[in-house]
């Protein structure tokens, strides 16, 4: 009883202990904030990674993949059908994206992904990251009239505005189609004025007037027709303008872009060549993972297979590069992976969970988190040494009182208990205050960021780098528990040596201490 009473009173009356309390408080608060932000980032990152990758990925060898998706999916169902909720075939191929903006041509290296409209959205969160609400409900590669999100639907507050998307859709396409038509008519009129002698004759042309009429009938009218649809990662067609604090789109839904892919080698055409086609942008993909958003372009699966020459003309069987599998229970990923690995030949097929695919990044993040925790716990260890020094001082100061307590019958363990409970009180108060401060900071972290940005005038958390408009945080109760308990334990451990010294004091020497 007296141990707790004296421990608490020493805490209240010795203001020098406040220094130790502040150290513990700051250490605990920092650990809670850093862990919450790290957990928030990790969660967002994993969610986005998982958003594009299904639970289990069944891959073929190389870019040419393997034929007959249906037969493979049947076999997969036979092996692990009980665990599977859905599957979708995918073709992934490196490609080049070309588009024009204000007379300048932009070329981007991309990862072109052919997806099945009907099934793809059911195995991943892909649709969630599209900018048209109808596409989010049901994926379509048809251009919409209008209605693309001007304000980011994923983080409506603090979102960077995107005024360019207001005119996106058929309205935009009709406008630039009409303008293009007018320009062509002007050009034709100019040529007619210059006379027929000015126009070079095509020596291979035949047919004369009849052929011209046919060409006029088959002409592609941009104001009423679209090419095959393409969904492009936001990072590929937009720029963040710091001066305007807004995104500028270089291409928007309604524009045409050109995709160039390497064709699949075949017996007819053994050397791969580059094949280009024009597509119409129908939506923008924004997962807020800069790596994905600046790399991924999606087109209809059948179109890509045809485009690359992946369809066998004699059998009409197409190749795919992977099958994305969604499980009923995500936790069964490793089980299903192992079952499929046992059933399919390892040299022909690679079977991975989505975590396997991202293991290097996930391991790096986990390692980073561990090292950061160790470093931050050193802050509390420093506070621990502060407690040790201050307690030693207090033991010296309280030597006579220790003698009095012993003369009143306090045992060695009792005297030791006073200083241990002092350390416990100090640790508890410091950790409690740190807990409050840390949680408060985490709760208002974006407001704190705004204040810091307004004071320093620089972006503390640049959305163009992180693609998060708010700092993501998750407070994990278990982590917070460990941090608080660890800090209290350090405070108590730091008080052990001074407490032992106090307990070993000889009562008579202590009473006579000047």
């Amino acid at each position, binding site marked *: 009883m007296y141990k707790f009473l004296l421990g608490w009173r020493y805490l209240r009356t010795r203001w020098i202990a406040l220094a130790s309390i502040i150290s513990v408080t700051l250490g605990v608060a920092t650990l809670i904030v850093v862990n919450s932000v790290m957990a928030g980032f990790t969660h967002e990152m994993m969610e986005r990674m998982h958003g594009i990758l299904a639970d289990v990925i069944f891959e073929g060898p190389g870019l040419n993949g393997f034929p007959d998706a249906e037969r493979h999916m049947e076999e997969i169902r036979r092996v692990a059908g009980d665990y599977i909720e859905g599957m979708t075939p995918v073709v992934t191929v490196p490609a080049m994206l070309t588009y024009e903006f204000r007379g300048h041509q932009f070329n981007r290296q991309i990862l072109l992904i052919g997806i099945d409209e009907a099934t793809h959205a059911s195995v991943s969160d892909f649709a969630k990251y599209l900018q048209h609400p109808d596409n989010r409900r049901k994926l379509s590669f048809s251009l919409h009239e209008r209605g693309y999100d001007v304000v980011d639907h994923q983080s409506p507050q603090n979102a960077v505005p995107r005024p360019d998307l207001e005119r996106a859709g058929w309205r935009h396409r009709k406008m630039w189609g009409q303008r293009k038509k007018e320009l062509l008519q002007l050009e034709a009129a100019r040529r007619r004025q210059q006379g027929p002698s000015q126009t070079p004759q095509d020596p291979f042309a035949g047919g004369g007037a009849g052929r011209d009429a046919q060409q006029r009938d088959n002409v592609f009218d941009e104001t009423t027709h679209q090419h095959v649809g393409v969904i492009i990662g936001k990072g590929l067609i937009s720029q963040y303008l710091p001066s305007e604090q807004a995104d500028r789109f270089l291409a928007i839904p309604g524009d045409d872009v050109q995709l160039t892919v390497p064709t699949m080698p075949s017996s007819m055409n053994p050397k791969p060549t580059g094949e280009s086609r024009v597509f119409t942008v129908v939506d923008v993909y924004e997962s807020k993972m800069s790596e994905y958003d600046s790399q991924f372009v999606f087109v209809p699966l059948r179109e890509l297979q045809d485009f690359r020459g992946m369809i066998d003309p004699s059998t009409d069987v197409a190749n795919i590069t992977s099958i994305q599998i969604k499980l009923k229970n995500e936790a069964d990923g490793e089980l299903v992976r192992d079952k499929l690995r046992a059933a399919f030949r390892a040299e022909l097929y690679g079977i991975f969970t989505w975590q396997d695919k991202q293991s290097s990044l996930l391991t790096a993040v986990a390692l980073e988190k561990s090292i950061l925790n160790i470093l931050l716990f050193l802050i509390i260890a420093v506070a621990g040494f502060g407690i040790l020094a201050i307690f030693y001082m207090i033991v010296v100061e309280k030597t006579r*009182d220790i003698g009095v307590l012993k*003369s*009143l*019958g*306090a045992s060695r363990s009792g005297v030791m208990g006073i200083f241990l409970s002092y350390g416990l009180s100090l640790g508890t108060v410091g950790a409690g205050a740190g807990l409050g401060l840390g949680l408060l900071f985490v709760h208002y972290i974006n407001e704190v960021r705004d204040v810091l940005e307004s004071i320093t005038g620089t972006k503390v958390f640049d959305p163009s780098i992180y693609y998060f408009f708010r700092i993501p945080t998750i407070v994990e109760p278990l982590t917070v528990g460990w941090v608080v308990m660890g800090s209290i334990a350090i405070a108590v451990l730091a008080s052990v040596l001074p407490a032992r010294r106090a307990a070993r004091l*000889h*009562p*008579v020497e202590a009473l006579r201490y000047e």
Partner: protein
Amino acid sequence: MQAEVHYAPSAAKKRIDPRPSAARDFDDAEMHMAAVGLRKNYRKAAVDIPVLKGVDLELRCGEFLAIVGQSGSGKSTLLHCLGTLDAPTAGEVHFLGYRIDHLAATHRDRLRNEEFGMIFQFYHLLPELSTLENVLMPLMIQHGPWSYFAHRRRHVAAAKELLDKVGLSHRLKHRPRELSGGEMQRAAIARALVNRPQILLADEPTGNLDQTTGAEILAILRTLNRQENLSIIMVTHDLTIAGQADRVVRLAAGRVEQASP
């Protein structure tokens, strides 16, 4: 050869029924505490310095014994050895016929807490606690947290009663720094008595007080001795104060020089 008998905590509460206080003749009274051939050396710079050189002393139940002597004569050391705060180099200390100087530390702690009350020249109240909490301290040490809280009202009532007895009922919440020297010593007396000890060991209880206040403190001790038959050993260098005791033992150069009634 008679076997050596050690004090056992189980026998701690064997209360003595001292002989009536009306007569101040202690020859027939039971032996309450005794020192037999007590020696104590302090070691300083590898040299043994003898402080007590074979002290024989007896305290009868209900007796008020004063030990006088000059500074450095070993009075306080003798009191510390009797109160088990310090271990003698040689010799024995007996309490109610049991040997107590060789007891284990935990037993000695219990003995000091339950059977002996101690007061000091410089009062030694704990500055962080109120007067009432200082008086309650021996009870807090004796009881665990649950036991203390279970009987808290009784403990507080006993402490308040003692503080009332020493005239400090109006100073319960005051910290020691807010009390005068005399009040602090009274609070120390109340603290020493709260566990109803059998013997009060007082080390220069008036040494730091003016004559009037010293006399008041002495009167309190005298009253406790007379009315409640509390055995008291008081160390002092003041012969006038010592004269109030039933018996005076003079200590000189570590030996009992003279005992006078």
